[in-house]
């Protein structure tokens, strides 16, 4: 589904990703872990198409297409979803109105007919109960005055509405207490399927207690330096990231 080959990217002339290789197949859950500053968010941003970042080498193929050639909205149309670490607050725009536009533009991109008001409402109700979010939140200005947990739940709701094939969760656990993490994770798990894949980006292991990965990768200094099964996450939890420096020195 996603094939990243020797991806180099940076910002303002500074190289941050220094040759990433990663393959994700349908149904898989991958986790990328790593210390702060290793390039995790940069990877998520580059995949979603944030224009501040410059790709200097390598390729990314998503469902047979050259992802890097696509505008951010086209990436979403193709089925990529990035749950933001810091969802943006937009006073004056409700989640519902935003989603009305987003769902129908994505449907248009996918060659599907637009939903009418009744159909949209039905879809919304279905997804609201799936991710357990209150309607009140959705009629308010997007993320404005939301708690950390509400913001993340809103991200998961939007994800459910757009039915992505690959969901990237960027530090979805940051700043959340364990209850909020559990709720967000339950939402993510509720929309997982054999056809879909998930890429969880996190500094801590705790989110992975609730979204159990098939593969764990350790990102350090712009490269994936270690990959393994879910036990790697536990190992990291015990030993921390300090081993990396030693290992890197030896290598």
């Amino acid at each position, binding site marked *: 589904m996603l094939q990243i080959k020797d991806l180099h990217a940076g910002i303002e002339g500074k190289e941050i990703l220094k040759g990433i290789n990663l393959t994700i197949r349908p149904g898989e859950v991958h986790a990328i872990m790593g210390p702060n500053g290793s390039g995790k968010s940069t990877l998520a941003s580059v995949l979603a198409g944030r224009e501040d970042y410059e790709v200097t080498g390598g390729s990314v193929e998503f469902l047979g297409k050259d992802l890097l050639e696509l505008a951010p*909205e086209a990436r*979403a149309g193709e089925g990529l979803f990035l749950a933001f670490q810091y969802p943006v607050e*937009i006073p004056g725009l409700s989640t519902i109105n935003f989603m009305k536009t987003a769902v129908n533009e994505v449907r248009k991109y996918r060659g599907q007919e637009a939903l009418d008001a009744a159909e949209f409402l039905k879809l919304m109700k279905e997804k609201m109960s799936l991710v357990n979010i209150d309607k009140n939140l959705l009629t308010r200005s997007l993320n404005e005055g939301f708690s950390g947990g509400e913001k993340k739940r809103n991200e998961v709701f939007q994800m459910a509405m757009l039915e992505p094939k690959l969901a990237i969760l960027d530090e979805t656990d940051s700043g959340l207490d364990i209850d909020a993490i559990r709720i967000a994770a339950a939402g993510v798990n509720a929309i997982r399927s054999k056809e879909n894949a998930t890429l969880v980006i996190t500094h801590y292991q705790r989110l992975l207690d609730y979204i159990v990965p098939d593969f764990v990768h350790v990102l350090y200094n712009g490269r994936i330096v270690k990959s393994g099964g879910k036990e790697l996450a536990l190992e990291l939890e015990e030993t921390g990231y300090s081993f990396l420096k030693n290992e890197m020195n030896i290598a």
Partner: protein
Amino acid sequence: MSTITTIKDKAQQLGAATQDALQPVRAAALAAFDQLGVPAVKHEEWKYTRISQLFNQPYQLGVDHSNADAAWQAFRLPEYETANELVFINGVYNAAASTVRSAGLVVLPLEEAAKGEYAQIVSKHLGHSGKYLKDGINALNASFLVGAVFIGVNRSTEIEHPVYIYNITDGRAGNVFAQPRTLVHVAANAGVVLVETYGSIGVADHFTNQVMEVVVEQDARVEYYKVQNDSNRSSLVSTTHFRQVGKSYVHAVTISLNGAMVRNNLNMVMEAEHCDSNMFGLYFTSDSCHVDNHTIVDNAKPHCLSNEYYKGILDGSSTGVFNGKIFVQQDAQKINAFQSNKNILLSDNANVYTKPQLEIFADDVKCSHGCTVGRLDEEGLFYLRSRGVTEASAKSLLLHAFAVDILDQIRHDALRFYVDQLISERLGA
């Protein structure tokens, strides 16, 4: 002969021909105009709005439009079937085209009002705005006073339907200079919704210099909406001067979407204690449109509250001007005055000049003001796009979101939908 000389001559002739109760006002105004002339850009209040250029060409003056055809009806506002409609064609009130439905609403030619039951009100209040706007353009309006109207709202009457005021210019026979004039008196404990809009007929240069004075008595309530979406060849100086002479409530919203050169003067003079006045504005300009909002809040008495919030979206090579004056006089203790102006520039060629101007002579007051000029939020844009919304739609959603808190201040539902629709069309949504 220069346009200004022609205009003065016309005013002179008019004065000689009409020896009515308004003549002293006209004569004084003409003398003032003679002395002051058209404000030049060196006049501090007209620094960014080059009004003098509008006098560089000839206009038709004093054409009889009493038999106007139905062309003005293209500018009717929603639910006009139930509304009161006052139609001005080239500055002159057209009674035949107008409809007054609501009981308790009085509409009279100003010269008639000046000699009947309302004579005292007229003589007391007509021309008061001249004290605040000591400039030639305001005087020029008063030097004509032809086809002007008195609008009275009787005591303790809530006028159920809005009063739509259409300021129409008909340029089918050439360039037009129009000077509508209205004096509104809202009696004690009365309530009214006034809506003004503007429309141009024909391909010509249109210039409207309008003055409305509104007197608001004890416990009265006024909602006032101004919707400006005129042609690229239509310029406007629109002065609305409120006097809150008793404890009262005013809620004003000015929406400017198009026009060649638009200058709004909105003044709130709070002459009684416990007045409450609200001024909201939205200007959304493109191409070479120029919109200038000058506002004055004058606190003369204690315990008043004023709240002012203007927002601008500027595209193309358009220009926005916001100047908000707040005067707090010595006696006006314990007043609250808020002011905010926020702007988004969508193009490198668009300009905005924003200036708060506070003059405070009382010590126990709460005043705050702030202004911002920025670009469309890139973070927000990326966020929306990452959810599959195209760049164009994302921009339109963000701009609509920016405008919505001003739109929400239009409490008359049909009008709000109408304006929202105009804005959505502009945004291509």
